[in-house]
C-alpha cells in the first residue's frame, strides 16, 4: 500500500531522512518508533503530502503523493489543529464537505459514547477530550491509510485505552495504519509490525511476534536497548 524508496529530506543543512526505504502492506497496524528528532514526523508529513522530498520515490496505492493519495489518506497531526472557536458540529460538517469517505453517523456515535456534546465549542473541552475529538474525526473516515502522529501525546492512561480501542474498533481491515509513538508499551499489543528509525535511517522493520519469539523480550525492552544513551 505504501512504498518509500531511497527517500531523502533535508531541512537546510540538517538531514531529517537519509535514504529511507520501506514498504507497508494493507491490513496491518505498524508502529513507527524512534527517539525525538529521528524523522518520524517528517516521514508522516511526507506521506500526508505536507512535505516534499529532495530525492526518492514515495507511492501510496501505486500513485505518487498528490490529490489522489490525499483522498484515501486520513491524517492525525501531532499538534492540535481544531480551531478553538468552532463547535464540534462545525468540525463534523467541515469533514463531511472535505472528505467523501467521512461517515458522519460513526463520528456522532463515538462522540455520544464519550458524552461529548456536538454543540460544545472546542475551547470549552479538556485537553484530553480535544485529542479524542480529533481522533474520532480521523477514524470516522473509511480511508485506505491512517497516519497517526503521536495519537496519545498528552492524554492520561485511561484515555490511552480509549484511543487504542477507538483505533481497533474503527480501522478498516483493508487499511494500513501507521502510528508514531514513544509510548511503546501501551501500543505494542495492537501492532503487527514495528519500524525503528534513528537519525533518519531505518534501523529495524520486523513483526512484533518475531521480536518477542526470537529476542524473548518486548518491543519496548528491545527499543531501550537499541536506543540506549
Amino acid at each position, binding site marked *: 500500500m505504501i512504498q518509500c524508496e531511497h527517500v531523502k529530506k533535508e531541512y537546510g543543512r540538517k538531514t531529517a531522512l537519509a535514504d529511507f526505504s520501506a514498504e507497508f502492506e494493507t491490513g496491518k497496524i505498524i508502529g513507527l518508533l524512534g527517539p525525538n528528532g529521528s524523522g518520524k514526523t517528517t516521514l508522516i508529513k511526507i506521506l500526508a503530502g505536507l512535505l516534499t522530498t529532495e530525492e526518492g520515490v514515495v507511492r501510496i496505492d501505486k500513485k505518487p503523493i498528490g490529490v489522489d493519495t490525499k483522498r484515501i489518506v486520513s491524517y492525525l497531526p501531532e499538534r492540535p489543529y481544531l480551531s478553538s472557536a468552532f463547535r464540534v458540529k462545525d468540525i463534523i460538517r467541515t469533514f463531511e464537505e472535505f472528505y467523501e469517505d467521512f461517515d458522519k453517523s460513526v463520528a456522532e456515535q463515538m462522540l455520544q459514547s464519550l458524552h461529548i456534546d456536538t454543540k460544545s465549542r472546542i475551547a470549552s473541552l479538556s485537553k484530553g477530550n480535544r485529542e479524542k475529538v480529533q481522533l474520532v474525526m480521523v477514524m470516522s473516515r473509511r480511508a485506505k491509510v491512517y497516519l497517526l502522529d503521536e495519537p496519545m501525546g498528552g492524554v492520561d492512561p485511561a484515555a490511552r485505552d480509549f484511543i487504542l480501542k477507538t483505533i*481497533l474498533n474503527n480501522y478498516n*481491515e483493508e487499511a494500513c495504519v501507521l502510528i508514531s509513538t514513544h509510548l511503546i508499551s501501551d501500543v505494542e499489543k495492537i501492532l503487527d509490525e514495528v519500524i525503528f528509525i534513528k537519525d533518519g535511517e531505518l534501523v529495524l522493520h520486523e513483526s512484533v*511476534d518475531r521480536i518477542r519469539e526470537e529476542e524473548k523480550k518486548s518491543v*519496548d525492552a528491545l527499543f531501550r536497548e537499541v536506543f540506549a544513551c
Partner: protein
Amino acid sequence: MDWKFTDDAPIYQQIMNIMKRQIASGELKAGQKLSSVRELALEAGVNPNTMQKALAELEREGLVYSQRTAGRFVAEQGDIREGLQEELMMEYVDEFLEKMMKLGFSVDEVIDLLQKKAEKRQRRQMRMTENERSE
C-alpha cells in the same frame, strides 16, 4: 476474561494459553460459541490479526472448530480436557521448580521439602478428623 500479557512471549501464544486454561477449567464449555475475532480482539485490546492467529492455532490443535457461516465453537473435549489439565500441571510444576532452583535449592531438597510438607498436611488432617470424632 482476564487479558493480561507479559513481555517475554508472543501475544498470540499468551492468548492461546489463556483460552486453554479456560477450557481446562471448564470456564469455556464444549460447543460454546466464541465471539467474533473482532469482538475478542477488542475485548483483549489486541490487534485482530493477533487474535486471528491465536484462534487459527487453537483450531489446528483441535481445541476449537469453525463452521463456515455460524462462527467458531469450543470443540467437544473428552481427552482434550484431560490433556490440557496435564499440560497445565506440568507448566505449574516447571514454573515452581525453576523458582526453587533460582533460590538455590537442588531437586532432591525440593522433593524432600515437598514430602515433609505433604506429611505435615496429612497429619493435620488426621488430627482434625480425630478431633471431630471425639467431639
